[in-house]
């Protein structure tokens, strides 16, 4: 597609359930980022992929969070045993170059996760 696509756009889940968020980056973009944006706050870095590997996953808040990327394309962010504090908009971005690259990142519309 022309841009970064994220699905679902909205997800309401019960506390304790697992959720999977998907990101389809722009074709050919080697770098992929996940960020979290809580209501009224800035972007919190979660994890960065260069190709299929994740050289920096320092932002993942706990071991309940994991992410993978396959085929240098689609990425999934999984949150296990969701908690109410996980409620946020999860943003995915991709860029042509990655680590140390100077190309801008293009963002998806985000997945709004609400844990009830």
């Amino acid at each position, binding site marked *: 597609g022309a841009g970064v696509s994220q699905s679902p756009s909205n997800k309401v889940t019960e506390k304790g359930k697992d959720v999977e968020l998907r990101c389809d980056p722009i074709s050919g973009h080697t770098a992929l980022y996940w960020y979290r944006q809580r209501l009224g*706050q*800035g972007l919190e*870095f979660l994890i960065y992929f260069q190709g299929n590997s994740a050289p920096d996953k320092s932002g993942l808040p706990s071991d309940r969070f994991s992410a993978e990327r396959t085929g240098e394309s689609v990425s999934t962010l999984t949150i296990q045993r969701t908690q109410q504090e996980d409620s946020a908009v999860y943003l995915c971005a991709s860029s042509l170059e990655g*680590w140390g690259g*100077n190309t*801008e*990142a293009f*963002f998806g519309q985000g997945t709004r996760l609400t844990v009830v």
Partner: protein
Amino acid sequence: AQSVAQPEDQVNVAEGNPLTVKCTYSVSGNPYLFWYVQYPNRGLQFLLKYITGDNLVKGSYGFEAEFNKSQTSFHLKKPSALVSDSALYFCAVSGLTDKLIFGTGTRLQVFP
């Protein structure tokens, strides 16, 4: 450690007046600097970037930013603000060995 600071939570300016949104950064080596804008209920949009060369960078919608190495700043500016510029603005930085990280954002409110 890599960091970005946006010292103002909100900036208010009258339409037609010049605006400045401040950003300072810390990164090892030469920085790559970016500004993004987030309109209500819309995704983040790229405005402009500084990689190398001219310290004054021009971007979308009439915005520009000035890279100041000695002050480690990259302030966003526009000569004449529009009400439609009202949005949330994010400064971001990456480097040769640093991931792309964002500031906390500054809400720009332009009053008619």
